[in-house]
């Protein structure tokens, strides 16, 4: 971990994760107000705002964080993942075994769990859930990806279920801790994906979905008698809050202003522009980097110019990540120090490889035969060193970040031409490969297997990587059930991606939320989404 780069936020993340409970303000500029609030109190409604509505209230189908903030609370998972260590801990499953070939996973379930329709949790429910997931529509991007190669689930006894895959699938254990694989009742698992989307599903979670108005709000209410929470939660039994109302507010200024004026308790998705007002009102921001692959400038490695590793490395050395973070992103955001964010289990610090070094960048380009032309842009055999970078306006900071990178690269003689596209054009763009660079490439996942999803040539391979030893490493780590043996494989894979500069890591994607001083015990789970069971209002 680099001590210079972001000592404060790292300390924050580590301390808060270790303490599990993160009191509002603990990592902001303000003091810890948790101490003044007295002992935790039950009751009340938390007013929580999100930016968007996915149009679907089935946690197994939705991929958007904005909707998962609420739906996460309505379903429990087989396992939970410790945000501090990345280790799986029991939840609905008391224990589990992974076969040495990482193809089958046997879960022993708690026997005291019921869904909110009164039906009990048993091995049959687990089977019904996993049998249904591969049949979900293409909307279920997250959950379906987690069970690729699913063979079947065997009901061994009332409370033991064995899930089997065609090929080694080490990531599956972490996947069972996500909301996307949260368990729903057998009756709902049998419904059509559309029905589940519009009517919602019955889970066994600490809250129950009570009202959904598309584009407007999702309301969840406390499950009375809940008593099978994750051991990572500080409170056992029922949640503190009676209900939580998630209001959809597209304008980030309105979200922030509503927290300041007391119309809301929590606002998510805040940007740098909202910070001054919030701080002036004594409200501090809570942040945690998303685990998984960081925001990056993905390069099309099949393009003639970019096939040359020296050019890619020169681009890598010319990007001043710190400047991008400070100028564009919310405070608390940290520059990338590797291809994975520092909150990802198995993360390797490669900040030395990502240091800004303009002189090195220039000499790499010189060595590759690119000479500076009269307009400051380099040329080689009549070709200008000009790259078209595509971006999608679905994230508020993208344009500003890219324009800054554009200026930074111009210093070493590389021209970036920015091209904005609609999100709907993304699949077609991947198919055609008609880009030099592609901004984004982030993938939130608290498991290093996201590297295989992004960079294995057997997968989508959006960046047109050539087959290499990286493929072997990515396949091997997916087959390694033992975390100790898996770690070095994952580390080498990260090194290969960064040292070959297949993509240029820039900044870690951050959850930024503001909470009123009356909100306490708001914590982040391993995927950097909120955990609201322990949350209470004073």
């Amino acid at each position: 971990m680099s001590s210079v780069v972001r000592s404060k936020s790292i300390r924050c993340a580590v301390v808060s994760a270790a303490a599990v409970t993160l009191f509002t303000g603990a990592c902001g500029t303000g003091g810890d107000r948790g101490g003044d609030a007295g002992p935790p109190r039950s009751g009340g409604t938390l007013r929580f705002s999100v930016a968007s509505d996915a149009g679907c209230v089935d946690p197994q189908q939705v991929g958007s964080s904005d909707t998962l903030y609420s739906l996460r609370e309505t379903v429990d998972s087989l396992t939970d993942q410790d945000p501090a260590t990345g280790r799986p801990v029991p939840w609905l499953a008391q224990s589990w075994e992974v076969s040495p070939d990482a193809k089958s996973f046997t879960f022993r379930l708690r026997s005291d769990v019921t869904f909110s329709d009164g039906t009990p949790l048993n091995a049959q429910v687990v089977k019904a859930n996993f049998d249904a997931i591969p049949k979900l529509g293409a909307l279920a991007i997250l959950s379906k990806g987690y069970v690729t190669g699913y063979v079947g689930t065997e009901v061994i006894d009332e409370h033991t279920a064995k899930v089997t895959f065609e090929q080694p699938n080490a990531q599956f254990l972490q996947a069972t801790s996500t909301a996307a694989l949260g368990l729903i009742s057998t009756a709902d698992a049998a419904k059509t994906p559309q029905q589940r989307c519009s009517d919602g599903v019955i889970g066994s979670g600490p809250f129950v979905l009570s009202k959904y108005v598309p584009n407007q709000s999702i309301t969840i209410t406390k499950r009375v008698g809940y008593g099978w929470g994750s051991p990572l939660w500080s409170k056992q039994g029922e949640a503190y809050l009676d209900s939580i109302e998630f209001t959809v507010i597209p304008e980030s200024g309105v979200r922030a202003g509503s927290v300041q004026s007391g119309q809301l308790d929590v606002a998510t998705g805040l940007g740098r522009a909202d910070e001054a007002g919030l701080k002036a009102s004594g409200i501090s921001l809570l942040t945690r980097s998303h685990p998984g692959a960081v925001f990056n400038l993905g390069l099309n490695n099949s393009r003639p110019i970019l096939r040359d590793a020296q050019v890619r490395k020169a681009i890598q050395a010319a990007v001043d990540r710190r400047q991008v973070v400070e100028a564009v992103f919310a405070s608390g955001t940290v520059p990338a120090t590797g291809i994975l964010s520092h909150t990802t289990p198995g993360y390797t610090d490669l900040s030395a490889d990502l240091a800004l070094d303009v002189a090195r960048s220039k000499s790499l380009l010189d060595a590759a035969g690119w000479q500076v032309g009269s307009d400051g842009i380099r040329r080689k055999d009549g070709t200008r060193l000009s790259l078209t970078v595509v971006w999608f306006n679905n994230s508020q900071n993208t344009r500003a970040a890219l324009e800054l990178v554009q200026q930074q690269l111009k210093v070493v003689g590389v021209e970036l031409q920015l091209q904005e596209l609609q999100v709907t054009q993304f699949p077609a763009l991947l198919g055609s490969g008609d880009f030099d660079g592609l901004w984004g490439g982030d993938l939130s996942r608290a498991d290093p297997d996201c590297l295989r999803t992004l960079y294995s040539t057997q997968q989508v391979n959006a960046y047109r990587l050539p087959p290499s030893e990286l493929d072997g490493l990515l396949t091997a780590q997916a087959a390694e059930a033992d975390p100790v043996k898996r770690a070095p494989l994952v580390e080498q894979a990260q090194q290969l991606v960064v040292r070959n500069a297949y993509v240029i890591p820039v900044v870690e994607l951050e959850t930024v939320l503001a909470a009123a001083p009356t909100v306490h015990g708001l914590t982040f789970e391993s995927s950097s989404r909120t955990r609201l069971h322990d949350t209470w209002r004073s």
Partner: protein
Amino acid sequence: MGRYVLRRLAQAVGVLWAAYTVSFFVLEFLPGDPVSAMAGGGLTSSPVDPAELAALRAQYGFDKPIVVQYFDYLGRALVGDFGDSVATGRSVTGTIAAALPPTLQLTAAALVLAVLFGGGLAVSATYTSRRWLRQVLLSVPPLAISIPSFWAGLMLVQLLSFRIRLFPAFGNAGLAGLVLPAVTLAIPTGALIAQVLAKSLLATLDAPFVQTARAKGAGRIRVHLRHALRSASLPALTIVGLLVGQLVASAVVIETVFSRNGLGRVMAGAVSVQDIPLVQGVVVFGAFVFVVVNLIVDLIYPVLDPRIVVARPRSYA
């Protein structure tokens, strides 16, 4: 009169068909593809099975030739069936029906405010005999029209919700939640009405029949409101008809700023993911409302001015 009504009805049907057709082909020729967009959603995640994409395409009929798709959709649309939203799986008619009441509330309230504000402004500007006051009042509409609704909305929220805490900043809750969005929406609309009405009032006040009325000894207020306003409101009425379309379009912005559910939000969301059935449904519905309102306006003309049907059937189309 019968032929006049029939001609207007035929025009209305033509407008609906044109709206449907144009939106269908525009969406069809946009770059991108709704099915792979819903499966990819802007994520570089797991690869999507091509067979599954093909099945989805078939399910929504996107695999057929475009002309066949067009007539398929058109045939079903004629009986009011716009299919299911690609993004949510809900029926298009159901989605529109659910989003309609809040938008109707908003646009109706805005229209009433706009007529009161615009009408009041125009009447008082033309009624006053103080030259400076008239100048001041007449300069309000151009100013109000040039304020972007987005900005006006955010300013109103900042002032009346965050600072003074008079009204909620977001949501569809009751009358209090309607005030700020309706006022925001009424500003440019009312300004347009004021602009047009003031101009035509000024012209009418100089017309011979008004002079005659005055000469016969009618009171100033009576002349202004009974004689001049009635005659001068024709152009303003035309504008109101057109504004209904604009109000629905502005609802996209207003509903976003004030976080209200409604047709505008549905439309914005549907366009961003190229949800063809849903966009089609909203476009046709919007055109329907527009056509009906203008039909009503057309039918009111002869009541206000009987010469229209007889002498100049086409000039107000």
